[in-house]
């Protein structure tokens, strides 16, 4: 299968900090890959590397078959980018924002109006086309931000934390939008630290930690492989939780804290003690692989 994105051994340093540390990453054409990792794992730097707004110190990068950074401009012409921070032109109308991007992405003159209409429809903003961005709600702004990246029918869309800071309703609207893109065969790389988002949308999840891919695979496989598919959750007062944790450690069972409870992983039904059985989820994998400590 053709790869929409192919990174091999990519390293990016900022002074003493190594933001990306030997990253391998593949996005097969037509699939959605979720880049999952805690803050500071190197997700945003990876996104910037893909548009050559950051230049890698080591490694090989190819986007849509073009080598970066040398051929990045051609690659960018076929990519859509949804940034983490809203950078819409706030004093312009919805339509004007799309028009500007139709120019920046070289949509031919005779197709411009149709492209704007199509993207307005994608964002469901036809009614608000003449509204200034300032007047839009947070959800509308974010929909416009996504739609703006689609005016030129990109083959690959890069989404950097597309739903960060949005309420659940708005998040679901965006998920529907992203899912629709995938159905159309657009390749997607989406960074997120919302586990549910990756689990729902991504064909493949890449878990990043300290600038590296620590696990790659479809969500279900990752769960089976790293947690055994089932988890046991034990509730109780802190002293009891500490005991359970200690016991588990002695018998070689992996655990994670879930705030008010302890989750025992990889128990595979042979755990004799108390606790609620539940299917393991991607969050268990995530915490297991990226560590419990928050840097």
């Amino acid at each position, binding site marked *: 299968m053709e790869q929409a994105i192919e990174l091999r051994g990519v390293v990016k340093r900022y002074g003493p900090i190594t933001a990306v540390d030997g990253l391998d990453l593949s996005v097969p054409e037509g699939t959605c890959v979720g880049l999952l990792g805690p803050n500071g794992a190197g997700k945003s730097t990876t996104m910037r590397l893909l548009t050559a*707004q950051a230049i890698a110190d080591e490694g090989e990068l190819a986007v849509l078959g073009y080598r970066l950074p040398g051929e990045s*401009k*051609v690659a960018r*012409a076929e990519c859509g980018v949804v*940034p983490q921070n809203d*950078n819409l032109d706030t*004093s312009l109308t919805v339509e004007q924002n799309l028009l*500007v991007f139709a*120019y*920046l992405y070289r949509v031919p003159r005779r197709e411009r109006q149709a492209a704007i209409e199509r993207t307005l429809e994608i964002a469901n903003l036809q009614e608000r086309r003449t509204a200034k961005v300032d007047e839009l709600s947070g959800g509308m702004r974010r929909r416009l931000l996504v739609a703006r990246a689609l005016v030129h029918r990109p083959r690959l869309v890069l989404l950097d934390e597309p739903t960060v800071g949005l309420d659940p309703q708005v998040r679901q609207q965006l998920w529907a939008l992203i899912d629709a893109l995938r159905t159309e065969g657009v390749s997607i790389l989406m960074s997120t630290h919302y586990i549910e988002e990756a689990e729902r949308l991504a064909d493949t999840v890449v878990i990043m930690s300290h600038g590296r891919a620590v696990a790659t695979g479809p969500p279900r496989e990752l769960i089976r492989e790293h947690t055994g598919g089932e988890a046991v959750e034990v509730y109780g007062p802190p002293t009891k939780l500490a005991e359970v944790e200690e016991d588990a450690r002695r018998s070689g069972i992996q655990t994670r804290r879930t705030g008010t409870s302890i989750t025992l992983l990889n128990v595979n039904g042979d755990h004799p003690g108390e606790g609620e059985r539940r299917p393991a989820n991607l969050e268990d994998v995530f915490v297991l692989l990226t560590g419990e400590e928050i840097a």
Partner: protein
Amino acid sequence: MTTAEVSPAPPARRRRLGRLERPALAGVLMREIVNFSSYWRGTTFSATVEPTIYLLAFGFGFGSLVSQVGGFRYVEFVGTGTVATAVLFSSVFPGMFSTFVKYEFQRTYDAILAAPVDTEELVTGEALWIAMRAGVYGNTPMLVAIVFGLDPSWGMLVVPLVCFVTGYGWACFGISIAAFMKSIENFSYVTSAVITPLFLVAGTFFPISRLPEWAQIAANVNPLYHCVQLVRDAVFGLWSWDDVGHEGGILMFGLLMWRVAIVGMQRKLIN
């Protein structure tokens, strides 16, 4: 069946887009033009009113004390000189402040550079846009001076071009400042230490021939001085070989600052 059909040539894909492409520049310019439609009133107001105030204040203030300066009536002298002031104000400040705001606060440049636009095209497009505005707004003092007695001449038709070239250099100067300064507060150093002296010692309000010799020599590296000279020579039809030098002065300045601005913004935006 021909051999060509058996083994078709691989589709010719352009691997690399060129530098300074027209569509990229057009994209950057279009963004500015569309944005301009939302704020042109304020900009036009200040670009028109400011030089008019200078003209009135100096023209009538000094004009009542001195009737002739360097062989011109004072209103003619100031009316042509403040063209350079208008160009300076309408190019260096947008270059400094809008650039800084666009990359630091609005993150506009992140969005533009994610599109098929390079830093070189971004800087060039932005500078061209500011220069176009300077090419228009630069004429306002001259037009106001016509109302106060400056005689219209054919040479005035060259003035927008002079304003454009000078404005391009100052826009790039402003962009460079924005690129190399860490915070917007530092801009005041540049405004007080560089822009104000250059603006005063350009032969705008008084001829530099009255200054000490070292200052006259120093004026030659002031692009505004060359702009002022070109404007006067154009308006009064006093063309001489000196103007080739003046023209060279503003072109060199523009070219130099253009490259500096690109290097600076490249450092700032691509990391």
